[in-house]
C-alpha cells in the first residue's frame, strides 16, 4: 500500500509504502461415513486439521517531499526517511470426530470431540480436549401430535459442550524482551542508544480457557407455519478464564494474562414471527429479544478497566465507583459530611461513606473503601423487529432495533475545558451549579460546579454519572415497486424494481443531543435506486 499524505496544519508531503504479508495455511484430512438402515441414519466424521499462519510487515517512508509528482521513495529527502518491520507466527493442530444418529427424523443425536493444541502455550500445557453433545426430538412427528392443526412443527433441542479459547496474544508464556531507546551523553552530544527489557511477567503454565455451555431450545410452528417461535435458554460457565488481573504494582511487570477464575452467564433468546396474507396483501411481522447476565466467580483477584471492574461477585465489566448523594447545596452540609478531600466546596459532588479500614464508615471518602459496584456495563434486553408488506408490485419493509437497558456513563459527554481549550459542552450550559445562580436555580442544577481543582473529584465515576443508555432505533424503511413483467419485457428486462430506502432514520434515547448510543459514525442514509435484471 502506498500513501501520499499531507498532514493537516503541519502540512508536509509524506510518502509511506507498506507491504504486509499474511500467510495462512490450513491442511485438513477428513474421513466421512454415512449409512441408512431402515429408519436409522448414521453418519461419522473423523478429521485432522493443521493451521499455520505467519504475518510479516514492512514499511518505509520519507517525509517533506519537495515535489509530489514523483511518488517514489528515492525522490524524497534522505534525512526524513523511516522504516519499520515485524513478524509473528501462530499454529494450531486439531484432531476431531463427529457422530450423528437420527431415527426417522424424529430423534436426533450428535456427539463431537476435538483435541486442540496451540502454539500459544508451552508444550506442557498445550493440549485441550473439548467434547460436545446435542439431542433433538421432533415431537410433531409423533403420532400423538398428528391429526390436529394448531401445531405444525415442534422440536425440542438440548445441547452441552465445551469450547476452548486461546486468543491472548501470540507468546503469552514467554518473557519477551521489548526494545526501546534512551538518550546518553557521548563526546559532548546526546546520542540515542537501544535498550532492552522484559516488560511482561511470564506465566509459564498458561493454557486454554474453557467455556462449558448448556442450551435448551424449542422450535415451534403454529397454524400451518404462520406463527413461528424459536426460543433458547442457555447457561455458560467459563473457567480458567484468561484475564490480565491486577498484580501488585511493586512486582514491577505489566499485568500478565493468567488462567484465573470463573464466569457464569445465563441468558435467553426469543424469536417470534407471524406471516400471512389478506387477499392480495402479504405481510409478516417478526420480533426478537435476548437477554443475558454474566456474573464473575472466584477470580483470585481483580481486573480494573478504567472505571469498570471484574471481581468475584461483580458482573462482567461492572461499573465501579462512588454512591452519589447529589450536589452540596449548603456550607453546613459540606462541613458535616465525609469528604474526599478537605478542599470540597458547595457545588461539588457529595458521596456516601460506605466503609473504612475497619469495615465501618470512617467519616472519610476514599477510593479504597467507598467505591461500590454500580451495575453491569453491558446491554440488557436487546431487541429487534421487522414488518414487511407486499401488495401486487408494491413492497414495504421496516426494521427497528434497540437495547432495553444499559448502564452508560455521562462522563464522556460532559467534560469541560478539556486540555484548557476553554470549550464547554452545550449540555452543561445553564444546568450547572454556580455561585452566580440564585439558590432556586442551584437547587434545580443538574451538574456540579465548574472547577479545575476539584474536577477529578467531581468527575470520578459515581452513580451520579450513570444513566440508562437504552435506545430504540428505526434502522431501516424501504418502499419499492416492481414494474409488472409485461411492461418490463417490452424493454427487454426480466424484472425492474424501483425503491427508496432510508437507514438510521430516527433514534430514541437519553443520550445528550448530538451523541449516538452506538458511537460516532452513525449517519442517516437515504438511497433511491433501480434494480434491473436482464
Amino acid at each position: 500500500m502506498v500513501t501520499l499524505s499531507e498532514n493537516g496544519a503541519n502540512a508536509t508531503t509524506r510518502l509511506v509504502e507498506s507491504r504486509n504479508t499474511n500467510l495462512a495455511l490450513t491442511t485438513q484430512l477428513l474421513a466421512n461415513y454415512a449409512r441408512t438402515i431402515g429408519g436409522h441414519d448414521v453418519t461419522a466424521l473423523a478429521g485432522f486439521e493443521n493451521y499455520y499462519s505467519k504475518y510479516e510487515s514492512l514499511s518505509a517512508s520519507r517525509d517533506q517531499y519537495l515535489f509530489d509528482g514523483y511518488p517514489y521513495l528515492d525522490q524524497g529527502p534522505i534525512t526524513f526517511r523511516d522504516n519499520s518491520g515485524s513478524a509473528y507466527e501462530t499454529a494450531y493442530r486439531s484432531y476431531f470426530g463427529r457422530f450423528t444418529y437420527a431415527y426417522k427424523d424424529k430423534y436426533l443425536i450428535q456427539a463431537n470431540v476435538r483435541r486442540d493444541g496451540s502454539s500459544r502455550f508451552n508444550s506442557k500445557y498445550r493440549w485441550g480436549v473439548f467434547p460436545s453433545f446435542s439431542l433433538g426430538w421432533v415431537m410433531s412427528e409423533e403420532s400423538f401430535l398428528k391429526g390436529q392443526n394448531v401445531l405444525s412443527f415442534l422440536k425440542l433441542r438440548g445441547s452441552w459442550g465445551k469450547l476452548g479459547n486461546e486468543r491472548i496474544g501470540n507468546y503469552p508464556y514467554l518473557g519477551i524482551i521489548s526494545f526501546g531507546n534512551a538518550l546518553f551523553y557521548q563526546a559532548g552530544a546526546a546520542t540515542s542508544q537501544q535498550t532492552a527489557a522484559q516488560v511482561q511477567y511470564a506465566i509459564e503454565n498458561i493454557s486454554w480457557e474453557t467455556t462449558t455451555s448448556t442450551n435448551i431450545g424449542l422450535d415451534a410452528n403454529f397454524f400451518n407455519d404462520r406463527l413461528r417461535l424459536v426460543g433458547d435458554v442457555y447457561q455458560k460457565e467459563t473457567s480458567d478464564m484468561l484475564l490480565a488481573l491486577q498484580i501488585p504494582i511493586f512486582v514491577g511487570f505489566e499485568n500478565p494474562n493468567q488462567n484465573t477464575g470463573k464466569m457464569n452467564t445465563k441468558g435467553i433468546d426469543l424469536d417470534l414471527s407471524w406471516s400471512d396474507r389478506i387477499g392480495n396483501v402479504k405481510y409478516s411481522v417478526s420480533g426478537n429479544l435476548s437477554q443475558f447476565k454474566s456474573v464473575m466467580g472466584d477470580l483470585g483477584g481483580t481486573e480494573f478497566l478504567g472505571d469498570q471492574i471484574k471481581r468475584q461477585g461483580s458482573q462482567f465489566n461492572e461499573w465501579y465507583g462512588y454512591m452519589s448523594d447529589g450536589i452540596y447545596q449548603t456550607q453546613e452540609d459540606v462541613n458535616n459530611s465525609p469528604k474526599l478531600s478537605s478542599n470540597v466546596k458547595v457545588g461539588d459532588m457529595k458521596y456516601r461513606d460506605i466503609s473504612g479500614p475497619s469495615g465501618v464508615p470512617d467519616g472519610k471518602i476514599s477510593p479504597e473503601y467507598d467505591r461500590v459496584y454500580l451495575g453491569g456495563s453491558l446491554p440488557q434486553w436487546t431487541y429487534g423487529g421487522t414488518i414487511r408488506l407486499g401488495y401486487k408490485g408494491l413492497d414495504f419493509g421496516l426494521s427497528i432495533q434497540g437495547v432495553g437497558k444499559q448502564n452508560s456513563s455521562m462522563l464522556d459527554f460532559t467534560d469541560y475545558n478539556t486540555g484548557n481549550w476553554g470549550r464547554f459542552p452545550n449540555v452543561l450550559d445553564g444546568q450547572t451549579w454556580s455561585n452566580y445562580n440564585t439558590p432556586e436555580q442551584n437547587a434545580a442544577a443538574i451538574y456540579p460546579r465548574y472547577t479545575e481543582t476539584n474536577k477529578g473529584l467531581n468527575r470520578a465515576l459515581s452513580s451520579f454519572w450513570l444513566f440508562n443508555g437504552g435506545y430504540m432505533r428505526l434502522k431501516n424503511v424501504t418502499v419499492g415497486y416492481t414494474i409488472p413483467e409485461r411492461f418490463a419485457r417490452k424493454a427487454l428486462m426480466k424484472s425492474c424494481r424501483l425503491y427508496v430506502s432510508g437507514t438510521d432514520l430516527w433514534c430514541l434515547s437519553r443520550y445528550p443531543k448530538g451523541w449516538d448510543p452506538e458511537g460516532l459514525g452513525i449517519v442517516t442514509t437515504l438511497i433511491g435506486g433501480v434494480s434491473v435484471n436482464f
Partner: protein
Amino acid sequence: MKSILYIALTGFGLFLAGCQNSLDLYPLAQPSAEKWYSNESEISLALNDLYRPDWWSPDEGIGSEVLSDDVFNRTTLSPIKAGTTNSQWGTSTLLWRNSYKAIARANRALAALDNPITKANVPPAKLAIYVAELKFHRAAQYARLITYFGDVVYSDAVISIEEAYTKGRTDKKTVLASVYKDFDEAAAVLPQNYPASALKRVTKGPLTPSKPELRCIWGILKWPLRLPKPAWIWPSIGCIQRMPAYLSRPLKTHPKLFLAYPDLLP
C-alpha cells in the same frame, strides 16, 4: 489396484506430513528473556534501559518543582497544592509504578548475570561493573521511593506473584541501609570516569563515600537527618537526556544543578 491405492495413500500421507509444522513457535521479531543477558551487548542493552527518562522523570513528568509552590499554573492547581490527592492520583501511582519497574528490571538482570553461561562469556572485571551499575540503579530507585513514600516494599530479587500477595512494607531505615550498601558496593567497582568517546554512564563520582554530600543528589543524605520530613525533592535538570553526563562528573563542579527544597512534602 490395491498397491496403487497404497501408494496414493502413502503419497498423500507424506504430503500432509510436509505441511505439518511445529507448534513450538518462538517470537520472530523479539528475543525471549530466557535466552537474553548472555553476552556483553545484550547485557549493555538491558543496562541502557535503566537510563530511560521514565525512571528519572521529574515532578509530574513535565518539569522541575511542579509539585512545589514555586510553580503555578494560571488555571489549575496541582493536586498537592489543591489538597486533593488520593491513591488514584496519577502522578503518585506513576512514580510508584515506574520506580518498581526499574527495580524489577535491575533485579531481573542481576539474577540473569549470576549464571554460568554469562560468566563464561563475559570477563569478570566487566561483569563486576555491570553488576555495580545495576546495584546503583536499584538503590537510586529505592532512594526515590523512600523519599516520597516512606516505608516501601523492598526486595533484592524478582518478586513472584505468589510472593507478592504476602509481602508487606519494610521500614524505611532498613531500606535506606540496603540503599547505602548498594551504593557503597557500586562505588567500589564503578570507574572514576569514562573515555571522552565512550557513553557517559554512571561513575564513582556521585557515590564516593568520602564525599557524602554528593549523595544529596539522591535525596538520601539530608533525608534521614531531618526525619520525619523528607527534605528533598527529586532533582530535575530540565535536560533529562544529559542526566547520565552529570552523574559521571563529580557533583562539586555543578553544585547548582541539584537543588534541594526542604519542607516541601508533607
